[in-house]
């Protein structure tokens, strides 16, 4: 089995992170913003795993598990909030939800 060089894994992670960030910044629907956040979290997780493999340490995978649980909790709360917002305001457009303006 050929090993994948750590560089490649990190490039992939960076690309994923950039994609996710772009999604967070440009998407209008909060649902897609949430999904883009998941992508960013996974990019970080990939970087941890790649790092762990590079240095032969288990810490990277431990961190990944932590990120996974975080992501699960985030999705659970995030989706619940989305539902509540939808029920209350009737839209999921992030640009129109600006009631907290100072």
């Amino acid at each position, binding site marked *: 089995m050929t090993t994948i060089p750590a560089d490649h894994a990190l490039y992939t992670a960076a690309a994923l992170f950039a994609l996710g960030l772009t999604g*967070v*910044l440009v998407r209008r629907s909060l649902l897609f913003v949430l999904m883009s956040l998941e992508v960013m979290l996974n990019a970080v997780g990939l970087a941890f795993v790649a790092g762990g493999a590079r240095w032969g340490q288990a810490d990277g995978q431990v961190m990944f598990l932590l990120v996974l649980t975080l992501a699960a909790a985030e999705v659970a709360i995030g989706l619940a909030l989305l539902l509540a917002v939808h029920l209350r305001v009737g839209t999921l457009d992030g*640009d129109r939800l*600006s009631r*907290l303006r*100072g």
Partner: protein
Amino acid sequence: MLIFDTLFGWIRPGAGVIEWLWLIAALPLAGFLLLAVAGRWLPRWAIGAVGVGSVALAAGLAFITAAAFLTTHAPGTALSQTLWPWLSSGDLHAVMSLRLDRLSTVMMLVITGVGSLILLYAAGYMADDDGYRRFFAYMDLFVFFMLVLVLAGDLLLLFLGWEGVGLCSYLLIGFWYRDPDNGAAARKAFIATRIGDAAFVAGLLVLFTGLGTTDIPELLARAVQQWPAGSVPAVAAALLLLGGAVGKSAQLPLQVWLPDAMAGPTPVSALIHAATMVTAGVYLIARLLPLFELAPAVLALVGAIGALTLLLAAYAALGQNDIKRILAYSTISQIGYMIMALGVGAVSAAMFHLVSHAFFKALLFLAAGGVILSFGGEHDIRRMGGLWRRRPVVFAGFLAGAASLAAVPLVTAGFYSKDLIISTVLAAGGTEGRLLWLAGTLGAFLTGIYSFRPLFMVFFGRTRSDLQDRPGWIMALPMLVLTVLALAGGLIDVPALLGGLDASSAAHESGALAPELIVVAAGLLGILVAYIAFATGRASILPHWLERAAHTGLGFDRLYDLLLVRPFLALTRAIRQDPVDRAFEGLGRAAAWTHRWLSATQTGRLRWYASATTLGGVLVVGAMLLLAVQS
């Protein structure tokens, strides 16, 4: 003492009467309280009766007490009466104590005696005034505070009376308060004397911190024991107390308030601003003379201030046309004589002149009040004339007063006292004595001019036909009594009453006659000059440019206006904007501004927040990378 036996011998009171000393001060206070509290329901005649009667009763009691005191107490001894402890805090034990000695006996008699005569006059003079009750209430209160001042055995109590008479002076100068000018004159008097009073308080503190007591005889005894002559605390205390005396007695450089104080009713000018209150400074220095003798430099300054003041005020009196302002400047000048006498330590001479001055100056003011009434409120002597035939009592009073003021020899009281002062300062010896003598002589010449110039202009010359109110008997009676006193008052041998001449005064008795003759000649020459000026029809004595300087009182008012009043008003205007408050307001405004700026970043847009977070992250990570590369 012979004269006292003839004057008071018939009274022969029991010694117990002295125990009623406190009642002398309490009577005018009772009069004040009655008028202030219940005066509303009293008829007009009763107000006058209470106002005059309380002081007249005090005068009667004062005479009896004085007779008892003089027969039972030798000179140099004193009668103390402790009423009650007043303040007790730490080392400070101020006591409400009265102290009657020869000095305060003289003052007490002058205050109550002349005071009741002036109040009787005022009952006629103020008869048609709306503020009749207020007037007598204030006057009684004044007499009370003045008695507290002179009878106080404790310096703090003396200060209470000192401030009290200042308050009454303020209230009575501004008595006709509807005219804003009178209010301004009252404030000016109050503030100018306040400057002196601040010095008095400071001097009191120096004395108390240095000697640990406020009881006057104890204080003087300790000062003489503990402070060597010319030591710093003695000089400081004497200098500060001199400041107080200068303010109250309208001497240089605080003399500016007295001419304006003539805005008050004429009886007020007679009682407060001629006979009694303004001489309080003389009394203070006389009372604390042992302290001043510990500071010879300050004592020399006292003499110099007196001499300068008497000359400048006499000169300023030449340029006045308001009859009351002439008298005001003459008061400043005559008090200058007394202060000058104190400068060589001659208490008896100063007190002698104080007494005769109280007689003739009160008389002059009362006569001036009669003149002002006769001309329907006119004050300018250039618009008066020919009064002597129509108002013989007023004329006799003014003539006697002016003659006494100008020290016409032998027949007037003023001659004996002024002569004693001028010979005493000469006998003090040295260049200083000769300079003071010269000032006194020159002053006597000027006094002759300024005291007879109004006399000629008011009572002689063209007669005016439109005369108005004639002073009634109630006003004529005090004038007649004071006329007698102004002429024969010299027979009351005040120096003997005080227990003999001071050493410095006694020295003059053996002195040459020539200097005395020169003084007498100077006074008579002054009268002659005034007559020539009048006979040749000159309204003013001085050439034009000198006249101007004299008329404005040598420009002291302008000087103080420029140096003190204007900067002070500018400061108040500046403070009115409240710069400190401005700074705090600026702080608040900065906070509000920052708040607005910060809250503007809270757009409520998710995209905005995310971008900002990203940008921040990029910047932080970028900076860290940059630093990592560099190191």
